[in-house]
């Protein structure tokens, strides 16, 4: 499968009469965008704002972040099974508006929404302080159940990104990257002497607001399976979860999964990147056993020499991470894990809820419990009040002047377990 990803670099976003891309500026017709996302009776009010890098702006509580993309050539459309029909995506041409993100925010859904600061000390921890953000603040009807609220806001975000993505359809991209994964046989013929590598992509599926969707299917109902890496770039995987803001994968991160990018980078040179095994993180032991058995079986079936395994979330899924590692290692296949840590505010606690000797190659994205101080911002998009109750906040997190003292956990995307950032942790 071969995908040409056309990157259109956007340097500025403004509201305008027509939604279009012109000389690196994205203009958004607010009325049309509102029209594209409204219609859900569960939401009483939808407001749209823009936040730019360097501004003294705080966005919170943030639910999802999504990059606008559009299918230019080839079967299917963006976000299959959610926005577009369930055609197989990942081939042909896709254009992406780089440097832009749709951010959904508003009244808290669960406890696990996050914070994006566009400047100040918090900004260096989130990738979304560097993007031009089109922020959509949704207000639900009263007494709306959380899972309904989550679904309503999720769909608003995806619709908004699809609508804005259309503006890139007829634009000549500034850069075209070609990603290609051959069939198994062809790959073996092409690189007979290179080690075979795959990516075991763990998706957050603990349920009760912790869900991820693959072609519209709730991933806790799948058994581990194979997916072409380019399918992910067309939105085959979307976030529907409220896991702690720091280490859930927003849809933006799925679209731009850096492990996939970096594996492609050395594909054909240091190894043969065979493909992606997606698996889940269900809560019952039987599910955990079945899924980890299955990832190990697929790894063996594909004749792999090594895998990278990434986790999403923490605590309960630490066991899935270790079971995957242990069982795949036991097949004689080398493993590298990507996770983050919950080592306590003082950093002195054990970092993961599980451990195994075979996990001897681990990349960490940092200790999510470490305390950070976020000074007040001139502008707040959304609401500051949940600072005390979102995951990572505590009683007294929000100060009178609007500053926030909380765990790093509150910052959206800060300890990304797919290795989005340079943050790490070390023993002192």
């Amino acid at each position, binding site marked *: 499968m071969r995908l040409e990803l056309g990157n259109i670099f956007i340097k500025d976003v403004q509201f305008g009469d027509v939604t279009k891309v012109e000389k690196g500026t994205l203009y958004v017709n607010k009325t049309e965008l509102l029209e594209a996302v409204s219609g859900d009776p569960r939401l009483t009010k939808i407001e749209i704002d823009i936040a730019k890098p360097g501004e003294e702006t705080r966005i919170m509580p943030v639910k999802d972040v999504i990059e606008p993309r559009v299918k230019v050539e080839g079967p299917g459309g963006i976000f299959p099974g959610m926005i577009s029909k369930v055609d197989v995506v990942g081939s042909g041409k896709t254009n992406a508006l780089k440097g832009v993100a749709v951010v959904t925010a508003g009244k808290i859904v*669960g*406890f*696990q929404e996050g914070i994006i600061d566009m400047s100040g000390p918090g900004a260096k921890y989130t990738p979304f302080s560097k993007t031009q953000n089109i922020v959509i603040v949704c207000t639900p009807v009263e007494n709306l*159940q*959380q*899972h309904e609220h989550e679904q309503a806001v999720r769909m608003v975000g995806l619709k908004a990104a699809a609508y804005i993505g259309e503006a890139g359809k007829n634009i000549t991209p500034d850069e075209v990257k070609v990603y290609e994964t051959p069939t198994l046989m062809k790959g073996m013929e092409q690189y007979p002497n290179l*080690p075979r*590598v795959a990516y075991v992509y763990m998706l957050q599926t*603990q349920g009760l*607001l*912790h869900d991820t969707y693959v072609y519209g299917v709730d991933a806790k109902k799948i058994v581990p399976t194979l997916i072409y890496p380019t399918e992910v770039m067309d939105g085959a995987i979307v976030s529907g979860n409220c896991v*702690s803001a720091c280490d859930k994968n927003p849809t933006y991160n799925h679209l731009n999964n850096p*492990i996939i990018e*970096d594996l492609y980078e050395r594909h054909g040179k*240091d*190894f043969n990147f065979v493909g992606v095994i997606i698996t889940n993180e269900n809560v019952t032991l039987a599910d955990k056993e079945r899924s980890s058995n299955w990832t190990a079986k697929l790894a063996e079936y594909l004749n792999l020499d*090594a895998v990278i395994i990434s986790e999403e979330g*923490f*605590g309960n899924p630490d066991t899935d991470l270790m079971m995957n590692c242990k069982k795949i290692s036991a097949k004689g296949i*080398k493993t*590298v894990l*990507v996770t983050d*840590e*919950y*080592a*306590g*505010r*003082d950093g*002195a*606690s*054990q*970092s*993961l809820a599980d*451990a*195994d*000797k075979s*996990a001897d*190659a*681990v*990349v*960490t994205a940092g*200790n999510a419990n*470490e305390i950070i101080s976020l000074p007040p911002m001139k502008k707040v998009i959304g609401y500051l009040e949940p600072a005390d*109750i979102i*995951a*990572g*906040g*505590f009683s007294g997190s929000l100060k009178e002047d609007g500053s926030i003292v909380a*765990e*790093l*956990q509150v910052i959206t995307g800060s300890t*990304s377990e797919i*290795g*989005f950032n*340079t*943050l*790490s*942790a*070390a023993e*002192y």
Partner: protein
Amino acid sequence: MIRVVHYINQFYGGIGGEEKADVKPEIREGVVGPGMALKAALGAEAEIVATVICGDSYFNENIEEASAAILEMVKRYNPDLFIAGPAFNAGRYGVACGSVCKAVKDNLNIPVITGMFIGNPGVDMFKKDIYIIETANAATGMRQAIPAIAKLALKLAKNEDIGMPKEEGYIPRGVRKNIFKSERGSKRAVDMLVAKLKGEKFETEYPMPDFDRVAPNPPVADMKKAKIAFVTSGGIVPKGNPDRIESSSASKYGKYDLTGVNDLTAETYETAHGGYDPTYANIDADRVLPVDVMRDLEKEGVIGELHRYYYSTVGNGTSVANAKKFAETFAQELIKDGVQAVILTST
């Protein structure tokens, strides 16, 4: 001027060898023995105002008394910094250096530092509490140890940022700190993968800890007479969360009375947990903490009784160290209250 008190044993204090290991602690003005070299390494910014000398056997056989006496001596000199040893591979000396440093740090709240060989038993006992410069296994390493100790000691005294163990020469303390690296995590993972494939050296960013596996206790022999308690990490609290237990990374637990409670209702109980959709737990908290079922079992005589109190915290993102600390505290209460078994419910 940074005022320093130095601690050494009877051997380095020039009192004698093993035959004098039982001498009681004493304090002398100024420098003694290795204090000379330390003074030179500390330079003009600091002054060793006094030196404590104690026999290794005496200290280890009378840890509490000796520590208390030494604390009093040290206090009188009003130091800003406390340095012990280095002890190299001398086991009892290492334990003494670690104990005294910890006592001084805890009681006088000033920076402390010592030096030991990695295999010294004092290392495992105290590396989490204090900075220990890694030294050679014998006194021949004095020339390397002293400047390293002095350098880090001054940094500590001046409250400067302390670098990583390798840079500063101290033994890793098991404290995880966030740092920014030059490459993003995904690139580091791919690099590590390639190194592992090629059989080259690589360094894991998170070495696996010694994992604490708990063996289950033998079963309760007679359930009909057993007093059973509930402990939950599912965050079930009386409505309004009176102790304000955090939705994530809990720093506390609550103890709540179940006297007269036969059923948890939407009006009386809720969950403080932020790691799952609370709708179903809030409608009926018995789903997480099944008080209703336990009351039935009490009536049916299947169990003796449900313990009057239940303990609750939020498991979401709560550090293992906190969870352990909570349990150590209330497990004592449960034992004292005559509880024979605990049902742990999660979410």
